[in-house]
């Protein structure tokens, strides 16, 4: 597994992401700059980390989604290469056209920073094969704009084609209601591209890889990726 992490001006979770990738794959990921035009040869996985790229100016992820490196990321995804976007990375994937829809301001207008349970919708993808189908995991969230929105036809397609990756739930695994932290449509926390080689999610699995910080439920995602290529 050869991973590359793209750093934008204002990214701030790239160190956490690199640590999680190193733990699972045994090798340091290559750190790329947004102004780069190419990925290293034989890159298996490109990761867009969390943060506040370009200060969230205009719309979250809007300017980063059009950065020079994104053409290479789009080409990588078109070849079937793996792409992971977490938090601001998910917003960037939506703005770049690699995933449908948009992340809007949280419905309650608050920045939410807390532990959060998620339901793993399917475990037959490169990102989730080390989880069980329907498993409830606990990771953390930290965002002000995680309210997933798309038109009705897109939501129907995501649901019909099994492209919802994670949903917000409570500790007992009950999806939605008060467990939805941001008003996201259908309690969506993360989605796949049509071929399931691109995943965007708001929660931070990279922060739950060490018992020292209260849990390791994020590890399986990186272990899944490590065994995928």
């Amino acid at each position: 597994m050869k991973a590359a992490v793209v750093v934008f001006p204002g990214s701030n979770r790239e160190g956490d992401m690199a640590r999680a990738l190193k733990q699972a794959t045994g090798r340091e990921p290559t750190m790329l700059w947004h102004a780069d035009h190419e990925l290293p040869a034989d890159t298996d996985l490109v990761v867009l980390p969390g943060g506040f790229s370009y200060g969230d100016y205009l719309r979250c992820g809007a300017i980063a989604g059009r950065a020079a490196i994104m053409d290479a990321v789009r080409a990588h995804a078109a070849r079937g290469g793996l792409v992971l976007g977490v938090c601001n990375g998910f917003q960037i994937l939506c703005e770049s056209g690699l995933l449908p829809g948009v992340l809007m301001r949280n419905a309650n207008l608050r920045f939410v920073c807390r532990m959060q349970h998620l339901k793993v919708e399917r475990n037959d993808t490169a990102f989730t094969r080390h989880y069980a189908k329907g498993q409830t995991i606990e990771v953390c969230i930290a965002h002000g704009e995680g309210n997933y929105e798309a038109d009705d036809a897109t939501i129907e397609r995501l649901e019909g084609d099994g492209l919802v990756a994670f949903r917000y739930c409570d500790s007992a695994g009950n999806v939605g209601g008060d467990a939805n932290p941001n008003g996201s449509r259908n309690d969506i926390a993360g989605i796949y591209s049509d071929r399931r080689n691109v995943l965007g999610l708001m929660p931070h699995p990279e922060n739950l890889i060490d018992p020292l910080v209260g849990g390791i439920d994020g590890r399986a995602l990186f272990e899944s990726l490590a065994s995928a290529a």
Partner: protein
Amino acid sequence: MKARVVVTLKSGILDPQGKAIEGALKSLGVEGVASVRQGKVFDVEFAGADASAAKAQLQAACELLANTVIENYRIELP
């Protein structure tokens, strides 16, 4: 030449900021407010005076300025 791009949320898209502003206006005693929607205005100044060229450039710019999943845009030229 000065141009303006106005970006507004599509109808049906929840606007929690507009809702909060609406509530604040009502609490200030502003009467008769049915609803408030928040948008964005971009004032773009072009070096030249060719309005049709500017319009074409602004159409291209709106690929960034507006996210048409949730927003509409309007280009205003003198």
